[in-house]
């Protein structure tokens, strides 16, 4: 039987790449300059039956249309915003992704970003390394995290994991979700605006869809206010980044911990001089353990596909 031709869109992970190369026939899209990629896909369209995509580069309609023999898209991540799911459904292309294995790291990072932002961990590290502790004396007071109300946008696996951790700090939990989760005791708000008005730390943990694009707009940011903290471990486009920057520069928002941005890898430079933001380069699931778990899940799904066994984590 012909080996599964797998297109890897980006250089996501060396272990994943090596295994795909070993088990299947691997096509490395990133090796081509962007202008030559369409041609590359046409040339190999007969062979490519699977695409492994990442948050940077997924499987959009154009790519799917260029691959008539495409059978399955495997998304390295739980966010499916870079995969054209409608096109896949129409074409009968299966989609798998990596839920559950990413939950812990993402939730850990959300809490870590909240504490780092409120307690100014990054800025006081800088203060110490540039000699200011010796020269200027103690760093200023910073905001306590424990006991602050945490509002979670999206109470899925990641949102619930964030809630569980925050409860360990004595934080009251509230949330906004598409539907109320009656099995929890957390306070539900039907709109993100009400959520922002009633919490001090707002964590974005919902999927990116047309409805949630720029769901964190200026009105929501203002409701969170000068003592509020925004933590985004979702997707950059969840937040109106221009308004966020302007609110931070004006002191209208207290602090922010950001793992994602609208135009990665570009981060608004106006933020670089602020001490009340933490800016990390989409590291949400970037641990050795979780990357391997995600890669293994992708590989097992692909193996299941070629052996006609049930997929482990289908997206639909």
């Amino acid at each position, binding site marked *: 039987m012909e080996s599964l031709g797998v297109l890897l869109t980006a250089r996501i992970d060396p272990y994943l790449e090596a295994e795909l190369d070993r088990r299947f026939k691997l096509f490395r899209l990133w090796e081509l300059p962007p202008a030559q990629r369409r041609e590359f896909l046409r040339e190999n369209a007969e062979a490519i039956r699977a695409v492994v995509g990442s948050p940077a580069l997924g499987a959009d309609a154009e790519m799917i249309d260029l691959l008539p023999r495409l059978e399955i898209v495997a998304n390295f991540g739980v966010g499916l915003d870079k995969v054209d799911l409608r096109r896949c459904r129409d074409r009968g292309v299966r989609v798998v992704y990596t839920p559950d294995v990413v939950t*812990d*790291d993402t939730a*850990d*990072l959300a*809490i*870590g*970003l909240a*504490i*780092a932002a409120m*307690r100014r*961990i*990054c800025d*006081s*590290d*800088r*203060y*110490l*390394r540039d000699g200011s*502790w*010796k020269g200027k004396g*103690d*760093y*200023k*007071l*910073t*905001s*306590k*995290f*424990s*006991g602050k109300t945490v509002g979670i946008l999206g109470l899925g696996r990641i949102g619930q994991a964030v809630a*569980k*951790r925050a*409860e*360990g*700090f*004595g934080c009251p939990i509230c949330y906004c979700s598409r539907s109320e989760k009656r099995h929890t005791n957390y306070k539900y708000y039907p709109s993100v605006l009400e959520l922002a008005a009633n919490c001090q730390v707002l964590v974005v943990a919902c999927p990116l869809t047309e409805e949630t694009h720029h769901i964190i707009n200026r009105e929501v940011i203002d409701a969170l206010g000068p003592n509020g903290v925004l933590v985004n471990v979702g997707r950059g486009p969840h937040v109106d980044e221009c308004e966020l920057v302007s609110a931070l520069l004006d002191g209208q928002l207290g602090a922010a911990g950001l793992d994602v941005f609208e135009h*990665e*890898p*570009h*981060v608004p*430079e106006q933020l*670089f001089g602020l001490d009340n933001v*933490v*800016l*990390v*380069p*989409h*590291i949400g699931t*970037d*641990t*050795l*353990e*979780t*990357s391997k778990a995600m890669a293994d899940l992708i590989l097992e799904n692909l193996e299941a596909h070629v052996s006609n066994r049930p997929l482990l984590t289908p997206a639909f």
Partner: protein
Amino acid sequence: MSDESPPAEQPQQRPEVLLLGPLVPFLDAALSNKFRFLKPCESSLPLLDFLAAHAVSVRVLLCSGPSPVDGDVLARLPALELVVASSAGVDHIDLAACRRLGISVTNAGSAFTDDAADYAVGLLIDILHHISASDRYVRRGLWPLKGDYPLGSKLGGKRVGIVGLGSIGSAIAKRLEAFGCPILYHSRTRKPSVSYKYFGNVRDLAAESDILIISCALTAETFHIIDKQVMLAVGKRGIIINVGRGALIDEKELVKCLMQGEIGGAGLDVFENEPVVPEELFHMDNVVLSSHKAIATPESFRNLFDLVSANLEAFFSNQPMVSLISE
């Protein structure tokens, strides 16, 4: 006191408290409403001379910051009955001498517990996920140039060994349990009410831990309790977090171990000779450095004010102290 005390007491009627060390202005102003501070720092006399001249009838000493309360100081305070410390750590107070002289000592109790525990967890997540290091990376404009930052390490499942399971250590344990970390500990005595695995010494604890968090008091016994043997035991992937006192760790040895890759990383809020920090650490991305600010929040200082105020008021009205240190 007169039976018809006016709402605002005459200055002479406020009880006298000797103040050693500077108080943060907010605390100074708030406490000065109720107590009359005797302030050696405002005199040109050397401290011990000042005490000999002016403090002979002082019954209470409020000790702010790490100002030492040693034998020389105590010898010049013949009427002293109570030392109120403004910190959780009391390594700067000669507790043995106080005990001999029948002087009670109170500390900050659990005023700082939450903030200290939050900070320890924050430092730990930072180290494992490279938060400060990758924040620097982003601000230097390196993300578009050099691509993604190297992988970090997952917190869940890592064995956390806590050195000192007092108020702060327990609060750290409770938080990290929610992240899926098995908790182990060493303390002066085993705590029957907790289910965490107990170790009678720190080296054994380190050998079974991926992460060591130091949250114990600094005493003669715990000086350099984190020594080379302990560091080698926690190992090349091991992480050490210190929110106790700098001298709990052999700092020279720590720097060597970090430079030689004998331990994986460290999150340090305290140092042996503050504000001096070994410069070798400034070049490392696997350490997070902090200027002794784990408890420096308005909330902790508010708690401290309430506690200091309560202890002083209790003393002057012959009530039991709120946060007496027990030996």
